[in-house]
């Protein structure tokens, strides 16, 4: 199970990166939505490669999440050096951020709103918010330029980081890569990658993993709902190395509450 999951993460991330390289050629950050629509409609096999990129990215997040849960259940933190555990933990928010910026840079209805919300959430961070916004978003002034750069750079960094760890153990086998490539291809052939046209609507839903935060933002101030609350599991996962019981209890409570908010957001 462990090997299947960890190599699944590496394989799907590799597929997402390769398909991302292909669709980055017809993609233009100055005209994000037009070029994304162009990829879907004009570029030969563009819709397939975009779907492949989309589903392999989603699978990377799901598999990494399962890999982390499995590492917690099997108490792998204690058998690893703290820095190795930290890299595994850091890769989770990094993959989430890559996926989130992937939504932002397509600049459709979901992406446009997600970018604006992310910008305001970054600005809600005390003292460093302005600099964080300038580094990662600034979508209201600079379009999707910065999220696009972060999407590309962070992918390279995560692939390098996780790849270095996994390839140190053994090389990614062709069988693993082939299996995951088949799953991603099957998903891409059955479902199209999501793209929501801008319209005069009264409800815009964010990325599926962001729905809980979106729901919570209706009730709590931006900093608490959008920064503090989503950061809690990362803090708990880091803390798991030293205080496993307390961290596990906190993680379970957080997961339960987030699941409820996610369902509430999805049912709207």
């Amino acid at each position, binding site marked *: 199970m462990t090997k299947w999951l960890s190599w699944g993460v590496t394989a799907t991330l590799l597929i997402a990166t390769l398909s991302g390289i292909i669709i980055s050629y017809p993609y233009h950050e100055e005209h994000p939505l037009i070029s994304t629509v162009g990829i879907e409609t004009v570029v030969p096999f563009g819709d397939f490669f975009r779907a492949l990129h989309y589903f392999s990215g989603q699978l990377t997040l799901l598999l990494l999440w399962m890999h982390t849960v499995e590492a917690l259940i099997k108490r792998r933190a204690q058998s690893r050096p703290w820095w190795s555990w930290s890299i595994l933990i850091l890769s989770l928010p990094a993959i989430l951020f890559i996926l989130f910026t992937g939504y932002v840079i397509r600049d459709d209805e979901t992406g446009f709103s997600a970018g604006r919300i992310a910008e305001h959430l970054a600005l809600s961070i005390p003292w460093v918010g302005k600099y964080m916004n300038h580094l990662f978003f600034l979508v209201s002034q600079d379009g999707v330029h910065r999220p696009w750069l972060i999407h590309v750079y962070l992918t390279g960094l995560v692939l390098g980081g996780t790849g270095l760890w996994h390839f140190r153990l053994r090389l990614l086998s062709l069988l693993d890569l082939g299996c995951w490539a088949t799953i991603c291809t099957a998903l891409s052939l059955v479902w199209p990658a999501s793209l929501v046209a801008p319209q005069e609507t009264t409800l815009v839903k*964010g990325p599926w993993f962001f729905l809980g935060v979106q729901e919570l933002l209706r009730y709590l101030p931006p900093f608490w709902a959008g920064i503090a609350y989503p950061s809690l599991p990362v803090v708990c996962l880091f803390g798991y190395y030293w205080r496993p019981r307390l961290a596990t209890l906190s993680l379970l409570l957080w997961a339960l509450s987030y699941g409820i908010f996610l369902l509430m957001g999805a049912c709207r």
Partner: protein
Amino acid sequence: MIIKKQRRWFIKALTGIWLGGLGAVGLITAFSYLPRPPKKIFLKVKLVPNKVIVGPEYFLLLSAHGPIALSRTCPHLGCTVNYDPEENIFICPCHQSRFTLLGRYISGPAHKDLKPLKLKHTDAGFVLEIA
């Protein structure tokens, strides 16, 4: 002796160029933080009572007090507010903040009114300022 002087002069010049370059970059960075001038849009439209003109960044309508323009940016988290013709109100699609046609806050997490925009009526049409 001459070679030493030349070397010293070269190092001084190089340091000057480097410091000058750093200063120039600093100035450019500082200027980028200055507020940008507002964007002006010229609109040649005829306003009719009870009809809202929805622009990419603004709402324009004829109220009882005359023509008004409102920003479509939600004061909560910056989403683009939409016009709901069924309820005749403005709704933010992200977190459901609601506003009257005058931009007054009704409900939702925004807790602020929609920002009014500067509007100038000329013989040729309207000039709208978006800050």
